[in-house]
């Protein structure tokens, strides 16, 4: 049933996010007629009808928000914020897919769901009913590491920085020696649309945040930290966070951090322009995330390392299973719901076989499902392929949990050249740039998480909003964002932190903390 073809054509109406900068769609093709829609039509007799499109980012969010507000959802759409899912669910706009999902999930989807120990199912459910298809992304998306220009370090004969003190010295050396020209930036930071640290609501993929800096001070701002004694603390209001903010403010004052932090349009700009020596983010930020940096300078030897505490520990906060959701309208017919489930199975099974010269983002209702440890598995196995210990054909296992492994194993030897012990940018062939980006992220970016055990993994007690948060969180979050940025930029003194903590507590923070602590008892 997981891959059955409908006898009669089934029309599926969708709302679709499009990347306005995409140039991969061939002439004559459109959002509702391309290789992916033709594939689902041919194989499963599903007609994709695109009700509306909106550009990635705020435009799409706005469109989703409006369609929820008007109670008028397309049959299917993918949303990128859990609050959209819960709002639609609590308003009774979503289809209860609990039973149909059990019947129609493919064995691969089942395995991937199982790899999260039930966390993915819980994430996709509202009041015990499964009301959306969750995405499941690799754990390493939430492990933020330090990206540093190894070639600059080598030129200055500096060691790889390990602790916060080392980072300060390294950033200073980069700037003093003008490694990236007169506008050299020691450490890049968040833009006006991103945040200084990942939070329980956006717990992964925070490119350009300061997450590892906080971790190295044993601070977990934005996370609900379990104190182990039945109580919970919001990580932002701790002394360790205050200490780290004071340090960041000091670095900003000394000119080590991007002077335009918090007001830039785009995090990636100074990184891609090769003005930056250090930034922080997850495994894919080098390779996938900063492709232009390599295009501008093919010798940009970005390397990834953990940041350690003074006593040599690696602390990291950890992400939730996924944060995007395929919503299916309550008004959809059962056949339409089945069609959406089948399309999801098909994507998981066949994504590696598609001709990816047309961006896979054009796949209707694409919502990624991957095994939580896929990246680490690939890192280890690809290294074996490179060293000749295994052959690509060994991975030719249809319906494998690791769906991209076989195609990557076939590519890896053409992209990466020997010697394999100590990979640098010079080992990589950039002819097929897409393949290069993937291999670079996998083999360089995920090397730390694949090979070095994290000493302290911190999970948030919840990754969702509690009832009181629905009305009060926006206000508290705004206060937090403002205070944190102002302290870093030196517009407010570090003493204003104490007032923020007091206000935060009295304006609903204490109430919410009690609610979150209540979740522990369950």
């Amino acid at each position, binding site marked *: 049933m997981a891959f059955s073809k409908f006898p009669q054509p089934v029309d599926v109406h969708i709302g679709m996010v499009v990347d306005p900068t995409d140039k991969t769609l061939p002439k004559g093709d459109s959002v509702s007629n391309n290789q992916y829609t033709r594939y689902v039509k041919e194989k499963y007799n599903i007609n994709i009808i695109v009700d509306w499109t909106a550009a990635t980012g705020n435009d799409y*969010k*706005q469109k989703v*928000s*409006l369609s*929820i*507000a*008007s*109670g008028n959802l397309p049959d299917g759409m993918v949303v990128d914020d859990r*609050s*959209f899912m819960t*709002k*639609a669910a*609590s*308003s*009774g*706009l979503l289809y209860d897919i609990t039973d149909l999902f059990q019947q129609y999930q493919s064995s691969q989807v089942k395995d991937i769901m199982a790899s999260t120990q039930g966390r993915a199912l819980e994430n996709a459910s509202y009041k015990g009913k499964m009301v959306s298809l969750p995405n499941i992304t690799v754990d390493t998306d939430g492990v933020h590491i330090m990206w540093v220009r190894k070639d600059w370090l080598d030129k200055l004969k500096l060691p790889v920085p390990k602790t916060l003190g080392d980072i300060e010295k390294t950033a200073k050396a980069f700037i003093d020696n003008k490694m990236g020209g007169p*506008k050299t930036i020691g450490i890049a930071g968040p833009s*006006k649309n991103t945040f200084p640290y990942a939070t329980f609501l956006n717990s992964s993929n925070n490119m350009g945040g300061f997450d590892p800096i906080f971790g190295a001070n044993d601070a977990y701002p934005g996370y609900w930290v379990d104190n182990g004694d039945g109580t919970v603390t919001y990580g932002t209001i701790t002394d360790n966070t205050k200490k780290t903010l004071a340090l960041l403010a000091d670095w900003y004052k000394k000119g080590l951090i991007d*002077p*335009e932090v*918090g*007001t830039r*349009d785009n995090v990636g700009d100074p990184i891609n322009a090769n003005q930056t020596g250090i930034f922080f983010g997850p495994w894919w930020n080098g390779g996938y995330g900063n492709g232009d940096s390599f295009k501008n300078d093919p010798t940009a030897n970005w390397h990834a390392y953990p940041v350690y505490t003074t006593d040599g520990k690696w602390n990291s906060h950890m992400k939730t299973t996924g944060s995007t959701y395929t919503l299916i309208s309550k008004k959809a017919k059962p056949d339409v719901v089945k069609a959406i489930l089948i399309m999801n199975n098909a994507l998981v099974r066949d994504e590696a076989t598609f001709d990816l010269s047309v961006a896979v983002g054009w796949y209707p209702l694409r919502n990624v499902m991957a095994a939580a440890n896929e990246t680490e598995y690939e890192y280890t196995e690809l290294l074996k392929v490179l060293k000749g210990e295994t052959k690509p054909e060994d991975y030719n296992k249809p319906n494998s949990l690791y769906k991209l492994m076989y195609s990557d194993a076939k590519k890896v030897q053409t992209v990466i050249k020997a010697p394999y012990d100590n990979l640098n940018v010079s080992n990589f062939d950039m002819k097929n740039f897409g393949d290069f980006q993937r291999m670079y992220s996998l083999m360089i970016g995920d090397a730390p998480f694949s090979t070095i055990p994290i000493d302290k993994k911190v999970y948030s007690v919840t990754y969702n909003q509690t009832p009181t948060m*629905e*009305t009060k*969180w*926006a*206000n508290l979050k*705004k206060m937090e*964002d*403002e205070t944190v*940025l*102002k302290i870093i*930029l030196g*517009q407010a003194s570090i003493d204003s932190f104490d007032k923020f903590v007091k206000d935060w507590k009295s*304006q609903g923070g204490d109430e919410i903390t009690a609610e979150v602590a209540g979740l522990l008892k369950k």
Partner: protein
Amino acid sequence: MKRMGIQKHYYLMLLPGMVWLVMFSIVPMFGAVMAFQNYNPGQGIFHSEWVGLANFKYMFQLNDSKSVIFNTFIIAVGKMVFNLLIPLIFAILLNELTNLRYKKLVQTFVYLPHFLSWVIMATIVIGIFGYYGVTNTVVQTFGGQPKLFMADAGIFRQLIIGTDVWKEFGYNAIIFLAALTSVNLNLYEAAAIDGANRWQMIWNITLPALSTTVVLLGVLSLGNVLNAGFDQVYNLYNPLVYSTGDILDTWVYRLGLQNLQFSLATAAGLFKSVISFVLILISYRLAYRFADYTVF
């Protein structure tokens, strides 16, 4: 009815505008009822739970609401005053020019920015006031320290008002220039014969001639006192300047479309509309009294 027959084509021309007005201004007004409900999209505006004034009470409890109303007021009043004053001065100065070709050239150039949207203008403004922008380059040439203007809450309002005036003053001057063409030239000749200099002519002839227009425009803009300009602020602000730069419209946008608090956002929007409505009534009375201007 007979008159209506003669003017049929005028009413026909009016039709698209009326349809637009009904669709986008009259019909959505019924949605304002959400402000008094705990709106649930699944139940719609007819079946959602009625909560009376609870949303308004909560709105005024929020610290944000006061600062947001204050910011809106300051920015809007600033724009009203300077969008009246600067174009007036500019129009008078331009009127004194004798080289007609130069005059036309200047006029064309200064009203060009009016036609650009704030999305584009914001990029230009950041190009001027950004950390690596023109202003800081000049400051550095003279040995000063570069400053992060866009993140400075202390000057954000001035920046908003200033850039808005810069964008609009050329366009706003058109009405004054039009009014100036209707001034009787004999008055200037008579003044010249009496030995008045240019300055005295401006003071005694030009300005009095423009006074009705100034009063009229000033009074009519009163209705906009809570419109501080969503497009502009949204494209220029960032969390560092929320304290002085966040206005009612951007606040409503974040509450409603980003945080899905539909009822609270509607309440804030309705609050703005009610205040604006009262101000429009007042301005209409004033316009009638001081400028003898009526619509109905």
